[in-house]
């Protein structure tokens, strides 16, 4: 039987929203306070949802040790206490939480083979969150 498992993680990072394609005025108008040249930070909460048949021998969709290990090594160690603007993936892209959600989904999609990746959901603050399911509409 197919089940969906969601695991929640936390990391903190700083960023500045600024597009080199816009003028200084346009950047300020678009990004407001987030355009502050010194940057600012958030405590992000990340939810990763995977799915698959429940293995009758283990009762699991996938072993949490594998999921936690992958997320720790490939996502949290990269983004926790980092300045997102300094990272290669944001050299050309503005480190909005939309773009960060897509990045994290793609890291998992490329490297995590133990279960099917359904979606990632990223909370930038308690007031806003972003979901990405690889361009697919979430099934449920």
């Amino acid at each position, binding site marked *: 039987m197919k*089940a969906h498992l969601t695991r929640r993680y936390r990391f903190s990072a700083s960023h500045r929203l600024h597009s080199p394609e816009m003028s200084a005025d346009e950047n300020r108008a678009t990004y407001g306070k987030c355009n502050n040249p010194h940057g600012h930070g958030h405590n992000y909460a990340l939810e990763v949802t995977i799915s698959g048949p429940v293995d009758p021998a*283990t*009762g699991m969709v996938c072993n949490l040790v594998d999921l936690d290990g992958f997320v720790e090594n490939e996502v949290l160690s990269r983004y926790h206490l980092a300045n997102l603007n300094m990272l290669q993936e944001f050299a050309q892209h503005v480190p909005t939480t939309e773009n960060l959600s897509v990045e994290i989904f793609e890291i998992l999609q490329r490297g995590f083979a133990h279960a099917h990746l359904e979606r990632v959901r990223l909370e930038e603050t308690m007031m806003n969150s972003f979901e990405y399911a690889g361009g697919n509409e979430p099934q449920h």
Partner: protein
Amino acid sequence: MVYLTRKAEFSASHYYHNPDFSPEENRRIFGKCNNPNGHGHNYTLEVTVKGEVDPRSGFVVDLKQLKEVMHHEVLDAMDHRFLNKEVPEFFTRIPTTENLAIAVWQRLETKLQKARLHRVRVYETPDLFVDFYGEA
């Protein structure tokens, strides 16, 4: 179609062990969860039902009936219990959060009157939950 979710909480203990595995395999696969003396969680259950709104009552479902079924079928059986030893489903199945969500679905499915079950969500901790939609 309107979806309605009812929440409940229960506390239970469990451990993970497959008698077909060797003791070493059990320890390797299940880690600390293999401790035969068990350990516990405060579970949160969310049951979502769906249906059209009844024009007379304005309800999708009688919430009282849903609450009673959840209490009778799930909480009475699982709250403050050792799942492996006291809940029949887990005499043979490992009481993971996945299997718990499936067991709750199977207990509720036939007992609900008007409501159609949409989703059972079981939180083992605030950082881990499983959704089951009745999919084969």
